[in-house]
């Protein structure tokens, strides 16, 4: 196991998260589940970025990926909030909670 550095563990985990999320986006029906699935994808991506910060065996963590993650999280949160608002509005207007009736 010594060949596997810490960041590789993180990276593997991030790939698993990303794939899980991606599968969820395609397979889930309920709006909320889909939105959560995109969040899981995002979590995977951010985890990978954070893990790269440490990889180069620098004295200190590379700040650039951290900056990217913070920006990314802000963007992802606002997108998710927007999606939730839309889903709630659709539910209020039509009572639907998935895409089944949409052509």
């Amino acid at each position, binding site marked *: 196991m010594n060949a596997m550095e810490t960041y590789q563990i993180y*990276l593997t985990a991030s790939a698993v998260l*990303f794939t899980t*999320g*991606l599968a969820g*986006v395609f397979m889930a029906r309920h*709006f909320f589940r*889909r*939105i959560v699935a*995109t969040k899981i*994808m*995002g979590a*995977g*991506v951010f985890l*990978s*970025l954070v*893990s*790269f910060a440490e*990889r*180069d065996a620098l004295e200190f963590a590379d700040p*650039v*990926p951290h900056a*990217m993650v913070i*920006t*990314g999280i802000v*963007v*992802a949160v*606002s*997108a*998710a909030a*927007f*999606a939730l608002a*839309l*889903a709630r*509005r*659709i539910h209020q*207007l*039509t009572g*639907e909670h998935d*895409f089944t009736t*949409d*052509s």
Partner: protein
Amino acid sequence: MTDFPTSIWPALLVAVPITFALGTVFFAAAGRMWSGLAGSVATTLVSALAIAAAVREGGLIHHLGGWEPPLGILLRLDPLAAVFIGMTALTGIAVSFYAASYLRSQDDLPRGASLFWPLWLMLWAGLNGMFLSNDLFNLFVAIEVVGISAVGLAVLSGKPPALMAGLRYLLVAITGSMSYLFGVALLFGAYGTLDLTLLSAAVEPGATTVFALVLMTLGLMAKSAFFPLHFWLPPAHGSELPPVSALLSALVVKGSFYILLRLWAEVFGVSLTFAAGQLIGVCGAAAVIWGSWQALNQDRLKLIIAHSSVAQLGYLLMVFPLLILAPGTAVAVASDWTSSAWTAAVYQTLSHAFAKSSLFLAAGVIVIAAGHDCRESLLDLVARRPMTAFAIGLAGISLTGLPPSGGFFAKWMLLKAAIASGQWWWAPAVLAGSFLTAGYVFMILRLAFAPGNSDTENRPVPRGLESAALLLAVASFFIIVPAEAVISFLESSAPFGSAIVPGEGGVLP
């Protein structure tokens, strides 16, 4: 590549629309319109001046805050970006005036309709950011800005179908950008830089690069609605306010295509193979045929136009196989067709942007006049609304690719590149596409010539709406006239004209 002089213009291209976008929020509906219109005019002026400066200097750069890469952010206004910014400005100003007139004349609009202005100006800033950015993370931010404002615009009408389509669009957009960002993370992890110029020098073949390539390509393809990831586009583009439909299908999908083209030509060449190009070309050919066929079978005008976008975007994908050299082909030989293929990409983008926005704007006129956009709404259009019918005719001709329109020039160059490169098998798809496009365009025109029943409503339409549609149709038809100048401007800088040599990357002949 970075030997362009430094200038303030690239920064203004992003800053001006953002400033106005934030400014409009402080006004009530009427003030929003005027400030939004002022913002559009200002952005158009800045675009015109920036392009003029770029033509004079060959290109411009700007270091935000004076920091140089890899730490700072570089905005690069090269000829390719300048042409795309010009396209955005021309479409944008026409749609802005249309929107102003449209939003004022319609009295059954939802309360939030005046949010069009801040959202649209944000979208504009995001698009300009996409065209100017020279690093992967900036591109991500720009993509997100564009994606969220586009969905915001898409749900403006507040009706359930629009909300449904908007949510679906948003989910695709988030998925696509997360996929893109994962690719960015992988590239950063492997090469430690985000700057496109630095990255293209550093990138090496290998599993990481391939994986990043696949993730980013799929993500961008989903955002551009490239076949087979196109499913979200027709409902999203077909159910909106007309100015919004025009903006989304003319500009938004082009932004991610632009990034895809840049990445393939400048960064990923080392990992690309001839087969990868063929694969993406097959997606394009399938899109052309499938989208056109779907368009032929639609009953509502806006859905015909929306499905036609799927098909027209397919032509853009067919450029990729022509840029990637087959094993053993000399770069010098390939200069015969790579330049044509690049010209085809640019001209297809331009002519489609103008033609498609014109068609959506014209469809908006028809909906106002007749109250709906079913087939009956088109009857006798030639006699009732000759200007709109003429706009549809011109835009349709350009879309079909009949001479001597802009669309014709794009298809000429595409076919020429296909035949000259020996990849003649794309020719039947191009032809079938033109043939089917003629089918739905003339289906519209046929109805427009047919006599109407007297009970067809014909409510008054502000003159400005029809003029905006006609202006864009004329632009889409006549962009062939300055082609000589446009191409020689584009050719002055990479990546335009370069071939992608598998294993080596983009190489200028």
